């Protein structure tokens, strides 16, 4: 997708602001509240078509295939249930089991078909062009290229729609009969660009119910949007320019600067992605809809597993529900656990531990490999998956050893210094994993790591950081202060997860409240990296 396509309806544009105001006005003024959702559906498609008519085909394809597949599965399940009910007295256990198996086979076949079709499209669009180019380079055909434009938000709506079909197949939810209502769930515009990936039972009812304009909700929504804009424009986009300078020519910089860039990237990617999600959630909130939280202070995490439970929560939940559990709780995993437990090795402490945790850790590794591959085609993404999955696998497998060391060293694991150490250690591991985002290829990841750890040059690094990566001392100060603010807000939420800064602000006197909002808006206007003086950076996750 070209930049201009994204810009046509970027969250941070006058067009989008006008679009949102019009949508909200029409939505709340719509006379027949029962059909209010049609306004959202229309707005969502207008939003999507504004990015390019040709992309709408893919969205329509996913909507249609998942809608009809879910409907068919639902009907098959319902018929089976009805048959079982009708023959409750006459059928014996075996007959009932056979009926369930037949239904299960049928529905799973349909599920497999729709998954293959949709993930096949995603796979084709995302990876085939890269593979073709790589094959062309390998065999000397430089013309062997396939220029395909990745439709806007295809990963997010594909994941969401497939999650829905799986839920229907599992019998967790009933299929939606109204195609319009279902399409709204798939294409609801605030989540289309970069998520969060919502579940049908969490989002659909909200989309379809009546909503009346509520000043407090709208105000909270706008405040959240302001915070998202601050993160994106004041923090992420200032840092992005410097990071780009280094990643385009890492060989020109010292190991110290590369290390600094990794730290800067940790700040940038969090501010960018969480800022974008805040804006998406804020837009939904203005329209009366609560979308799930996608971040929960990830850099306060004490383990890598904890980190992934706090970062891109909706993707993690999707992976957990639809990939991790099916593997970890599969019959094969159960058989493995039983087999190890019954073996001589299973009689040892280590054997018993491994028998229990190994299926889960293997499932984790697979999940992270899939997440890595989802990020893109290339060895660095495989490395990304292997690093995260591998570290988690090792940490779980070696957990008894670590606990033993803690006991021997008499470390108080619940004390604050230990928690700080754990957070720093996790942050370090995350940063190492992030190098796969910064490097241009798999091999370069190792070069980055080697140079960061073996080619430290503080004098050169200090000079480069001051003069060579395009940030002025004032911009560093801005990033430092903004980063501290981000940390403070995260700290407040971490101390008391129920706290809402917006509610806290609401309890303050009028003058304080409005002064804070005014200062925040002024900070975005003055310090934001927007307009032609800056190279606009797209939201990092839009590309997925």
């Amino acid at each position: 997708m070209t930049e201009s396509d994204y810009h046509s309806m970027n969250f941070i544009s006058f067009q989008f602001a006008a679009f949102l105001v019009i949508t909200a006005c029409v939505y709340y003024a719509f006379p027949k509240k029962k059909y209010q959702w049609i306004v959202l559906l229309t707005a969502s498609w207008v939003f999507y078509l504004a990015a390019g008519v040709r992309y709408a085909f893919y969205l329509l394809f996913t909507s249609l295939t998942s809608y009809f597949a879910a409907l068919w599965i639902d009907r098959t399940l319902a018929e089976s249930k009805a048959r079982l009910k009708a023959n409750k007295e006459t059928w014996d256990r075996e007959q009932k089991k056979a009926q369930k198996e037949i239904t299960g086979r049928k529905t799973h076949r349909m599920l497999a078909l729709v998954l293959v079709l949709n993930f096949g499209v995603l796979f084709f669009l995302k990876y085939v062009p890269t593979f073709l180019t790589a094959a062309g380079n390998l065999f000397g055909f430089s013309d062997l290229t396939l220029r395909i434009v990745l439709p806007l938000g295809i990963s997010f709506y594909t994941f969401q729609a497939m999650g829905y079909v799986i839920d229907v197949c599992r019998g967790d939810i009933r299929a939606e009969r109204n195609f319009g209502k279902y399409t709204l769930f798939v294409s609801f515009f605030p989540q289309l660009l970069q998520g969060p990936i919502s579940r049908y039972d969490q989002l659909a009812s909200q989309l379809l119910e009546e909503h009346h304009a509520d000043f407090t909700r709208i105000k909270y929504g706008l405040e959240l949007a302001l915070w998202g804009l601050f993160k994106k424009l004041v923090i992420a986009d200032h840092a992005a320019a410097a990071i780009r300078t280094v990643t385009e020519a890492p060989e020109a910089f010292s190991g110290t600067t590369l290390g600094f860039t990794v730290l800067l990237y940790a700040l940038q990617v969090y501010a960018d992605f969480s800022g974008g999600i805040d804006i998406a959630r804020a837009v939904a909130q203005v329209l009366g809809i609560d979308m799930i939280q996608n971040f929960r202070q990830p850099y306060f995490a004490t383990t890598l597993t904890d980190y992934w439970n706090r970062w891109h929560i909706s993707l993690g939940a999707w992976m957990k529900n639809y990939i991790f559990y099916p593997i970890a709780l599969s019959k094969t995993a159960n058989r493995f656990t039983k087999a190890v437990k019954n073996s001589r090795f299973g009689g040892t402490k280590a054997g018993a531990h491994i028998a229990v945790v190994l299926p889960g850790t293997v499932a984790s590794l697979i999940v992270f490999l899939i997440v890595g591959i989802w990020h893109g085609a290339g060895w660095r993404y495989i490395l990304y998956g292997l690093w995260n999955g591998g570290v988690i696998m090792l940490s779980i497998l070696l957990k008894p050893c670590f606990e033993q060391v803690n006991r021997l060293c008499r470390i108080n694991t619940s004390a604050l210094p230990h928690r700080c150490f754990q957070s720093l250690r996790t942050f370090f591991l995350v940063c190492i994993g992030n190098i796969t985002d910064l490097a241009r290829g798999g091999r370069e990841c190792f070069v980055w790591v080697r140079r960061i750890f073996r080619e430290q040059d503080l004098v050169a690094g200090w000079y480069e950081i001051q003069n060579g990566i395009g940030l002025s001392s004032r911009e560093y100060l801005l990033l430092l202060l903004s980063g501290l603010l981000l940390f403070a807000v995260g700290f407040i939420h971490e101390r008391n997860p129920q706290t809402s800064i917006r509610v806290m602000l609401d309890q303050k006197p009028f003058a304080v409240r409005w002064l804070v909002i005014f200062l925040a808006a002024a900070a975005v206007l003055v310090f934001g990296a927007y307009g032609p003086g800056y190279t606009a950076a797209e939201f990092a996750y839009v590309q997925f």
Partner: protein
Amino acid sequence: MTRRRAVKILSLVLALVLVFGFAQMYFWRCNSHNELRLYGFRMEQKDSLDVVLLGASDIYAYSAPLAYSLQGFTSYPYVVSACSVCFWKVMLEDILAHQNPKLIVVETNGACYDTQRELHNNGALHYIMDSMPFRLKLQMIRPLLTEENDSAAAFLFPGLKYHSNWNDPEDMKSNFLNVRMLQRQGHAILRGTYTSRYAIGLQSESRNIENDRAEQPLDAEAEQALREFLDFCREKDLPVLFTCFPHQITTEDDEVYQNFKMTNTIGKIVDEYGFPFLNMETLSDEIGIDPEHDYYNRTHLNLYGQQKLTEYLARYIREELGLVPWEQDAEQTRAWEESSDYYTRYCRYIEEAPTDSEALFSETYDLMRELRKMKEP
């Protein structure tokens, strides 16, 4: 929504608009001499100017205070760097909205621009648009909206482009002080004067163009804009003198020579409409321009060239065109005398700059502070 809430929201929005507007007025500016020059033009007392010069940077070769001290008429260069013919009409309307000059001098180099380079060049367009009041921007915006250029919003609200000035406090400070200085003075004392003492020298042999009548067609869009401008001037029956200021035309610089040939074409077109055309390109010897010492770059005259050209043009306007200046009140006379005085100081000041300094001097707060310190001549 209650009335109280509406008032609160409106006050917040209003406060933000005020801050944005204030910042745009004083801090979020391009900080170019172009902006200040046009700002100064709008500060001139209404209908007080005898002559207004319209065009691009070539007119830097003219000094209004010097013309006043030599020939006694008041003038102002309504000049923006790289100002193309496409904007002349709107700019002339702006001039006529403020002044009723006895003569409008149009320098025609802006009609030699082409679509590829100058007519739609983003940077050049910002020079022009950033210097214009909002209502004129709305008139001028349409041809600027191309893929390569900044968005319409960035042209209409310069703050979108220049809000990053916070990163350069020195620049913000001078933005603020320059505007405040003009506001305190009540007018631009140097009246848009802008030049350097630097001499680039001759890069190759001067081309003899005295009897050269070679022509070259203009860019189609430029010619259409020129004809529309001429139609407008004829329709309004305006007293316009078209002219071309001298450039350093050498045997090896084809680009400047091509412009010269286009100037011949422009002369013919202007003639079709019955307006006078003074091609000073061919009058360099008569003006006394020394190609070796009087240019700070190949297309712009330096301080010494400025003095010679202004003397020639001012005399031409008074003697050949018979311009009789408006009657001035004592206050205006005092202000223009002050301008002449400051121009003399300006010349002395920049003559003290090192000969190899390519610095260009315009009416900024720091320059004026230095000029004020100098003794009266």
